[in-house]
């Protein structure tokens, strides 16, 4: 043992850059990617704040008049000040009948107001920053809460799907033989049924809404794409020389699978995870729209779009705009982020 060797052994790592570090540096050079990352991070911050209850906690309170227009547009002429609401309603109702006065019209109007949450003593805003929905709930707060729901569902489902897909894919790709046959059979059964049909079928039988259900449904059916890719990667790497070399020096199967191959496959999984978040957010929106997704008391972009459908005919466009804008910005940013990730982790000629 030379003294020189001993001295250097103590020192070692001098500014060397692993592949992850190199990828990060490459990523940072992509301006579009960086901006997307910032936007996505901002959304995550909003989700966290909303989840903690710091913002948009009172989204269900009806603080505006029905269909309050956005602040920029000015108050709607038809929604007059609440002070004069009661007698006006009475007068309106009385006139609706063809000349015959309705003796209990006034009381009915009061009941109706009570159901709609308007008590004569409470004042309601004539306009809201982003408008109000049918019950006068603040659209902006709803959009924020909806972001929280949709993003959480997308993220959680994607993580579940990625975990299952990677685990199954690694086993199938590495071991081959009957293990591979079994997983392939499983995969072909799941993929024989189109994705949306499977989700709807499961939603039908479960007959139970809720965020957790949606996450489970999406995660348990969405692992197939990741499985196929991870399996192909493992099959490719298993015969690469560095894995063979590990075999020859005596590394065990588990060691080869997780210490050697997995770090070389994880960049594929990361990109797939990102893609699946987008896919699941879109799926959740469709499910919630149809009424099979999150519960009635939870707001999601899908439920907002559902309400917006009818509002549009009445000319009230702001809930549609809010939900669409919130979703479009996030999904665009996430998609661009995924592209940038892919380019950074696996650079090829563009």
């Amino acid at each position, binding site marked *: 043992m030379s003294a020189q060797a001993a001295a250097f052994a103590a020192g070692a790592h001098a500014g060397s850059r692993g592949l992850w570090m190199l990828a990060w540096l490459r990523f940072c050079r992509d301006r579009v990617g960086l901006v997307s990352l910032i936007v996505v991070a901002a959304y995550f911050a909003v989700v966290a704040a909303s989840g903690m209850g710091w913002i948009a906690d009172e989204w269900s309170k009806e603080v505006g008049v029905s269909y309050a227009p956005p602040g920029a547009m000015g108050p709607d002429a038809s929604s007059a000040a609440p002070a004069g609401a009661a007698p006006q309603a009475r007068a309106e109702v009385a006139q609706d009948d063809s000349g015959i006065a309705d003796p209990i019209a006034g009381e009915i109007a009061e009941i109706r107001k009570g159901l709609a949450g308007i008590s004569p003593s409470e004042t309601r805003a004539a306009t809201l920053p982003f408008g109000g929905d049918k019950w006068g709930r603040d659209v902006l707060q709803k959009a924020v809460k909806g972001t929280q729901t949709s993003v959480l569902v997308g993220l959680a489902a994607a993580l579940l799907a990625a975990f299952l897909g990677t685990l199954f894919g690694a086993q199938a790709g590495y071991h081959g033989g009957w293990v591979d046959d079994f997983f392939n059979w499983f995969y072909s059964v799941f993929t024989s049924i*189109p994705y949306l049909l499977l989700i709807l079928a499961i939603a039908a039988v479960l007959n139970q809404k809720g965020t957790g259900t949606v996450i489970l449904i999406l995660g348990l059916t969405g692992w197939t794409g990741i499985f196929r890719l991870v399996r192909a990667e493992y099959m490719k790497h298993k015969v690469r020389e560095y894995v063979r070399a590990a075999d020859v020096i005596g590394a065990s199967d588990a060691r080869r699978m997780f210490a050697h191959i997995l770090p070389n496959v994880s960049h594929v999984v990361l990109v797939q995870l990102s893609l699946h978040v987008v896919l699941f957010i879109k799926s959740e929106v469709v499910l919630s729209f149809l009424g099979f997704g999150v519960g009635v008391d939870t707001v999601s972009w899908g439920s907002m779009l559902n309400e917006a459908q009818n509002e549009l005919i009445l000319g009230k466009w702001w809930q549609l705009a809010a939900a669409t804008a919130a979703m479009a910005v996030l999904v665009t940013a996430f998609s661009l982020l995924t592209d940038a990730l892919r380019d950074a982790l696996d650079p090829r000629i563009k």
Partner: protein
Amino acid sequence: MLAYVVRRLWQFVPTMIGVVLLVFFLFSWVGGDPAYLLAGKVSNPEQIENIRRQLGVDQPYTAQLWIFVKQIASGDFGASWSTNEKVSEILATRLGPSLTVLVPLLVISTILAMAAAMLVAYVRASITDRAIMIGCTVGQSISILVYIIVSQYVLAYQFGWFPVQGWGNDFSENLLRYSVLPVIVGVIVSLAPDVRLYRSFFLEEMHQDYVRTARAKGLSETRVMWVHVLRNAAIPIVTNVMIQLPGLLVGAFLIERFFSIPGIGREVILAVERSDFPVLKAVTVYVAIATMIVNLVADLLYKAIDPRVELE
């Protein structure tokens, strides 16, 4: 070749068994007791027992499974729980409208996407390329729901160019009047992701060595792109289209629902809303069979267009 087809058909069997088991597991075990669902608010135990007997869910699981298998073999799934129509009839009548929208949709969107993708790939890294790509990304990020809602409102309701929804009885009327807006919406929605995907296929081919050889032979750029590159890129494109087919049938359900087109997709949604299990079971099984057949056809087609592939 024949050996290959036979072997693939043979492989259908375990998959089919798996699908049957999965569907059965879902609907009969997880789905639980539908009697309560259908009895509504009536909770007379006798009536519930009656319904159970009618539906056959009072028998042990193995017997139910056997009944299910027989149903698949005979093609008769009984009657819908909600409308009491024969399930096989429902599916037969709904197939036509679905295809009337889907076939033009598929053809138009594939051709448009291929042309756009080739153009974009050719001018890669230019401003046009980046603009179109960003446009596609943004376009993809807007939910299909929004496209449908907005186009219905603006193009049909406001401008009155198309009927807002509905379906007629005459084939040509359906094709030329009622299908137009749905097809337009469908094409717009699928254009963005397809252009991105096909662009990547074209780019990958354009960087291959054989393109350099073709240029070295002095062939014109037009010939290099339209004959050499296109022929190679067609392979993954065709594969992609074939894979999407079975999913499209059901995936158009949103379009069908909004435009009130009496197709299979809409039927599926209605069945889910009403917990109409026979319809769902039948659709799932048939679509699974269709998927397997389409996959086999896709592989054979693949062999026809890519001479390197050896079917073993």
